[in-house]
């Protein structure tokens, strides 16, 4: 990449520099530069493309960029979900989990229940507790939260401790914004209570994190 391209803030120049990147290192640098421009939304197609390149450094940068762009990136991410490219799909799940847009719910549910990669299931569990529901009607919010709770409850049986840890964080994130008498808050507390019991949860750090979540929810 030439210095002139590096200095220009125009999206079109950043995209041109990105398309000229040849080596793996150049691609990482060009991906990082992509979103730092006058019109980040214009770079979404390139960022989504990067997820399929088998270049973890560039994919991490693209996921960060997509999360920073937020809801504007969700349509293209969903439209390009590639069932045949496992790596690309895994990175897309991470991006959707980080954005927290309710349109990603189907993908997150499916990933937590069926993905072979613990790091993908872990991102999905975290994301299921962090969906941004403020703009939706109350009834719609209730329906989505219920699906998140069911997915997280099933995730308690995951064989990997780190996924169960993320389930704890998911329960906490889902319950904290709700008023204490809300039934969904009670249900999340019940889920967390189970993950604090040595008889039901073998991993100490998962139990400790559940204890912290219950304390924050004021149910020690």
């Amino acid at each position, binding site marked *: 990449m030439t210095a002139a391209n590096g200095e220009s803030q125009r999206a079109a120049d950043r995209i041109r520099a990105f398309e000229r990147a040849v080596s793996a290192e150049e691609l990482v640098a060009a991906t990082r530069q992509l979103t730092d421009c006058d019109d980040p939304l214009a770079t979404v197609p390139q960022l989504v493309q990067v997820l399929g390149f088998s270049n973890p450094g560039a994919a991490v940068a693209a996921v960060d960029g997509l999360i920073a762009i937020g809801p504007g990136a969700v349509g293209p991410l969903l439209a390009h979900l590639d069932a045949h490219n496992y790596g690309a799909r895994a990175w897309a799940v991470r991006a959707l989990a980080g954005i927290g847009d309710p349109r990603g719910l189907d993908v997150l549910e499916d990933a937590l*229940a*069926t*993905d*072979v990669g*613990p*790091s993908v*299931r*872990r*991102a999905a*569990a*975290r994301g299921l507790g962090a969906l941004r529901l403020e703009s939706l009607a109350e009834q719609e919010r209730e329906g989505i939260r219920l699906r998140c709770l069911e997915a997280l409850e099933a995730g308690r*049986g*995951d*064989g*990997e*401790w*780190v*996924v169960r*840890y*993320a389930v704890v*964080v998911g329960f906490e994130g889902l319950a904290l914004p709700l008023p204490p008498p809300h039934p969904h808050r009670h249900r999340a507390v019940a889920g967390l209570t189970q993950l604090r019991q*040595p008889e039901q949860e073998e*991993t*100490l*750090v998962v*139990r*400790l*994190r559940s*204890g*912290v979540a219950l*304390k924050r929810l004021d149910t020690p």
Partner: protein
Amino acid sequence: MAGDGEPISEAEALEQLRQTDDQSSQYYAAWWLGRMRSRHPEAVPLLLAALRQRQPRDVGAGVEHNAVARNAARALGKIADGRAVSELLVVLDDADDGLREAAARSLGELRAPEAVPILTRRLASGPDVAGAHRSDSPRLEEPCEALLEALGTIGEAQTEVLEVIRPFTTHDRPLVRSAACRALLQLTGETVWADELLRLLQHPQLQVRRAALMDLGAVGWRPALEPIQSTFAENSLKLIALRGLVEHGRGSGAGGGADSDDEALLMAMDALL
């Protein structure tokens, strides 16, 4: 359950381990029983039988028998049943260094003090002999990392043990240095060994940074929190290391609640999910 990679039951695993015609099934069954930490009464006797299936080292001949034995040795460590100790001690002197490596790790997991004299004897010739590069493979004469790690995990801190380990902190392979520092930090608690691990966390090779992460986690060295957060490595490995920092020094039972130091570590873990 997602992520366990198994379509067999415990009964099938035991059956596949019992038969001896199909060694790849035995290999998988031994791994499976260890992965599931099987508590079935037949699991340990069958794994010990599979361990005895090992053959004298014969380069060029099939390694299938010893592949089963190696997985059996690993599974016996995961199941952590004291009945396995005496057989694993014999394997520590086997001619197959892959088997010695698996036995050392398992004896570490079993916290078997009986292993310390053999482990130190195999390392006593130092980095120039036990730690010498082999001409026929990229391996060293002894599986140094596994032997060193086992000594640290077992936790017998006699002067003779420390004197055998110390020269390996200057071995030319960073992974061996990391294992030696980890063991010495576990045995002595001296900061100087942690400092070397923190330096290895900045090593240009990812493989070395990964090993230093695992070693700091195994010791539970809490001052390593920030260096762990900032090193370039996968979040999955950082999470394992931070779990080690949180859990270290606690009983594995009910264990009480998290204090503010614990909470800082847990929040660092949250940020890596």
